[in-house]
């Protein structure tokens, strides 16, 4: 299970990579492996305003349709267009080419509510016990 140490995590298995004023968002390796082959991703529109913990995307796999919640609040600056035709990128590379969107962080303090890599590792291990 990959858990890069430069990201922040949520209990719903989303990650956020803070890059200056912006954050890149996606779902974790644990999420993609639990979902199985991903067939479609419904992404928000550019310009949409996300609120921390609110639903902002939906991932369909051969098994299920799952909701994705925003790790941080902010305006969507960019979405990963590649995922429209290649949703399998999330399975192959959840932290790199399988990213979902880039937002302009609205409230930097919100990251304190997220888990560190170490906390997320414990959390995931707890789930599998």
């Amino acid at each position, binding site marked *: 299970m990959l858990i890069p140490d430069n990201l922040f995590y949520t209990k719903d298995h989303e990650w956020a990579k803070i890059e200056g004023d912006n954050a890149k968002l996606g779902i974790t390796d644990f999420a993609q492996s639990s979902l199985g082959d991903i*067939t*479609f991703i*419904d992404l928000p529109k550019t310009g949409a305003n996300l609120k921390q913990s609110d639903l902002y995307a*939906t991932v*369909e*796999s051969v098994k*299920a*349709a799952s*909701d994705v919640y925003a790790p941080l609040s902010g305006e969507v600056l960019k979405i990963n267009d590649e995922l429209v035709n290649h949703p399998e990128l999330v399975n192959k590379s959840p932290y790199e080419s399988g990213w979902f969107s880039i937002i302009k962080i609205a409230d930097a303090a919100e990251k304190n509510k997220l888990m560190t890599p170490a906390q997320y590792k414990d959390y995931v291990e707890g789930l599998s016990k």
Partner: protein
Amino acid sequence: MNYVPHTELDREEMLKAIGLKSVDELFRDIPVNLRPRSFDIPPGKSEFEVVEYLKLLAAKNATHLTNFVGGGFYDHYIPAAVDALASKPEFYTAYTPYQPECSQGWLQAIYEYQTIICELTGLDVSNASLYDGGTALYEAAMMAVRLTGRKKIIVDSGVSLIYRTMLYTYTSNLSIEFVETPVVHGQSCREDIFKKLDDKAAAVIVQNPNFFGAVDDFSDMVERAHSKGALAIASVYPVSLGMLKSPGEMGFDIATGEGQSLGIPLSFGGPYLGFIAVKKEHMRQMPGRIVGETLDKGGKRGFVLTLQAREQHIRRERATSNICSNEALCALRALIYTSLLGKAGLQELARLNYQKAEFAKATLDKVSGVKVKRSSPTFNEFTLELPENADEVVSKMISQGFACGFPLGRFYRGLDNYLLVAVTEKRTKEEILNFAKSLEAALCS
């Protein structure tokens, strides 16, 4: 005859299994004053008695009248093969036949039904069908709300009042704002639609031909809707598509309609057939079942339900709709009917309807006091202006053996003297001439 399958012993065992003493205990959460005191169920009847009773009810139907009534439901000829094939027990008795391992026949039929709906409407994806034209239009409206994230919907009042009422009823707790635009001289008012089409609009809904029979090319309106980020939805009459520009050609995002005219008999309350077809880009927001074509393990062509992640059994409360069923048997009839006619047959059928209606227009125009409204082209239905109340004329014509049309005053205020007349391929030249003669006599009396 006992209709209850469980024996007293069955009931005792079931109660014992859940730890109850009586059936009444099952309902203990319902306060006594809210429970019915008696179900007032009369004693059972024999088969003979039931048949006699149903015959009595059936005799109330006025089936002897020559039918010129339309208003969304049309008297088309249904070839005997439709009944013969659709009543095959493999089709007729199957319930929720979606399991690919044992329902390839049904799944293929639904797949082919979807194909004909796509070809008729000129759109990319159809589902396995919906309940009727009204529920289909509601589902289309909700698709637009989900796709745009907006809550205002513009509805042309040329859309059947039945459908509009269904739209408003279904959405009454969803805080969706409906804005109606007026019909002027029997046609949708573009100016008014354009005025109301702003960047808050999720969709604009029109009907073609509209309730007055008027045929329109909505391409310009669709373009305007798209420029405001709204979707365009058309409710259409499938038989007319053998001749008219399709919703797809006009650029509509979603087409819906009542499929009754495709091989389903007219009956009070249905069952009828709702169809919906959408552009491919919107398919993930489409409600209901969709059958797709695939290959099995051995590389053979086969059919399965597809895109099920939209549906209730997977997506729960965030499903596209609470519909998990379809109108399979009626969809099958539509498939058999359209397959029997084929492309050339459907075009010929549309032409016949159009020409007979044009002949009826020319004939009725000569009846003194009657005016055929000619502000726009029509398909097989048109509006007559009468010198007296249309409801009364309808009553007088019934005694002459004619169901002469739908009095528009029932749906539209101020149109008490207007009659909507439909002429299908079933109406003969003689019937149309007699209709005109009887109308002339009725107006003099």
